[in-house]
């Protein structure tokens, strides 16, 4: 059953969003990007200012000129799994899971039978008699998954379900979700690229309440067009205009910049403004023609750091100012605004790098991918 929504919530969200039947969509984005607002609108916990929400041929919400429609949350067939399990503390695990079938009119005995089936599905049958207060975070979240599934929702919403779990419980739940989300229409809001990779068919990147990027997971992470997706993919990203050799960098650090209201791009001014007008040479896929808007992406590991402009080779040389130095996978990550370079501790010590220092980020043309934005 296809879910379609077009919604405007003043100052928080303005997006068109669809979930195909059986598809799992990951919604990514920085804090305050409107991810939770999107879920609240879908679940019916928030009424948008305008737009429409449909699930299959059912109109869940509509406000468009003279047409008005509203289906309250409990009649939508849309279940919500939050960051915290929010199991009802006064009910046993079994009765928590039996809550939805009971609300749907099943008898107490039948609803408990249904609950047992879903608890078995999430490997939590042994927890049946416990109280929510006696569960670990991971156990509680597994029970919450069973409780949401027992509602047999046509659309399942997951709001950062792994965020509150410790690092040992998260992988377990992720595997469980992979199993139960297969073939289900679901939306998962997450900060974690691993969730998107493992669970989602498609990725939507929200920023400033708007969708700045969407597509298959591999496409978005392999060829990010927004600063946020580039960050998730671990790539440096510069936006500008495609040229014959590569890219002419424009003001801001990323293609997503146009849609962003400035908050999430703090720090770009250091590198971004000074790089504006810089020409980058790189390898183009040939799809984007010269003159079109495009981005250049390159991994931090391909960047070397120099104190002076190196001579000779056909390499890109970007004048930047170091903003931070941090340990990263056995080496040092040198940050200059939105850009990063990974170098060895020895190299860092030899160069005497420290924040505030002007340096040159140098990257080979062969390492720079240029494609249309």
């Amino acid at each position, binding site marked *: 059953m296809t879910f379609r929504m077009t919604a405007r919530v003043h100052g928080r969200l303005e997006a068109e969003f669809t979930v195909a039947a059986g598809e799992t969509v990951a919604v990514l984005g920085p804090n305050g990007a409107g991810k939770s607002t999107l879920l609240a609108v879908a679940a019916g916990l928030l009424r948008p200012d305008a737009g429409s929400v449909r699930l299959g041929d059912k109109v869940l919400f509509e406000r468009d000129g003279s047409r008005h429609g509203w289906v309250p949350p409990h009649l939508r067939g849309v*279940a919500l799994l939050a960051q915290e399990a*929010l199991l009802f503390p*006064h009910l046993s695990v079994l009765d928590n899971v039996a809550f939805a079938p009971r609300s749907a009119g099943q008898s107490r005995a039948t609803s408990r039978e249904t609950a047992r089936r879903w608890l078995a599905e999430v490997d939590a049958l042994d927890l049946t008699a416990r109280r929510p207060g006696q569960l670990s975070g991971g156990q509680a979240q597994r029970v919450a998954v069973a409780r949401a599934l027992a*509602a047999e929702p046509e659309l399942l919403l997951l709001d950062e379900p792994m965020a509150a779990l410790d690092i040992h419980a998260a992988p377990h739940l992720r595997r469980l979700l992979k199993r139960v989300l297969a073939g289900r229409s679901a939306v998962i809001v997450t900060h974690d690229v691993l969730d998107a990779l493992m669970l989602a068919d498609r990725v939507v990147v929200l920023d400033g309440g708007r969708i700045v990027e969407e597509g298959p997971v591999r496409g978005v992470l392999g060829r990010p067009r927004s600063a946020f997706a580039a960050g998730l993919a671990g790539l440096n990203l510069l936006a500008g205009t495609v040229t014959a050799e590569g890219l002419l960098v424009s003001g801001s650090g990323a293609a997503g910049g146009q849609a962003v209201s400035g908050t999430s791009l703090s720090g770009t001014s250091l590198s971004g403004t000074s790089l504006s007008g810089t020409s980058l040479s790189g390898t183009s896929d040939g799809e984007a023609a010269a003159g079109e808007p495009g981005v250049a992406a390159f991994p931090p590991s391909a960047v070397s750091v120099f104190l002076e402009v190196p001579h000779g080779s056909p390499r890109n040389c970007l004048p930047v100012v170091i903003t931070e130095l941090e340990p990263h996978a056995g080496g040092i990550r040198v940050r200059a605004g939105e850009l990063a370079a990974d170098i060895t501790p020895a190299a860092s010590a030899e160069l005497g790098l420290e924040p505030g220092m002007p340096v040159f980020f140098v990257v080979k043309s062969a390492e720079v991918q240029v494609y249309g934005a």
Partner: protein
Amino acid sequence: MTPSPDASPAGSPGASPVGGGHGYSGVPRWLYLPAAAGALFVMLPLVAMLVKVNWGQFIPLVTSAASLDALGLSLRTSAASTVVCLVFGVPLAMVLARRPFRGQRLLRAFVLLPLVLPPVVGGIALLYTFGRQGLLGKSLELAGVQIAFSTTAVVLAQAFVALPFLVVSLEGSLRTAGKRYEAVAATLGAGPTTVLRRVTLPLVMPGLVSGAVLSFARSLGEFGATLTFAGSLQGVTRTLPLEIYLEREADADAAVALSLLLVAVAVAVVGLSYRKPGRQVAA
């Protein structure tokens, strides 16, 4: 800080009634003096009363017909007024805690007014509402219903002064519990009435119980509004506080004995409510 030799390392902070070596308390020493004075101020009058009790005559005094009438009436009317408070107070608290609307602050102010209003004023107000010449009383009179100076009037007077206790207590619990559980319940397919019955009320049950107990206790002690609106008829409207006031003139020993009885009932009620409420059994 000097290490104290008798500090037990294994004790939890709560396990040390004397204080001393167990973590920072944030209570300045001099604060204990006014605190002790305050405690004395509350306890000393009760002790003074205990001293005055004529123990030899205690049983006959509290089991006289008038006393038993008054005690029975007090318990019955207080129970009834607690029910009235629940019936109106739970919806009021829900409306105040859950849905912002125009005039909400004003409504809350009016609901809380009886807390600070002299009860005798409340009694007069009730008289002009339900009395024979009152706003509603006239129509009720035509319908053959007389409220003023009846047991019903006692219940209304008590409910009038006790309602704010329930509303305040429950509204606080509702706000603390938040709406997140209710939102989850709704997305699981539970309609608003089911959510109220199976999620909201069980979650705030401790607040509801303590609110109801406070209302009961306030009803039990109600005097001014009852006397004004319901009068003092033995067995009909003369509750225990009224009986005590009356006996104070005639028979001081009886007044003291009945006072002690009222204190005992009040202590029992409050003691019960501040015990940790047991777990709610699933419906």
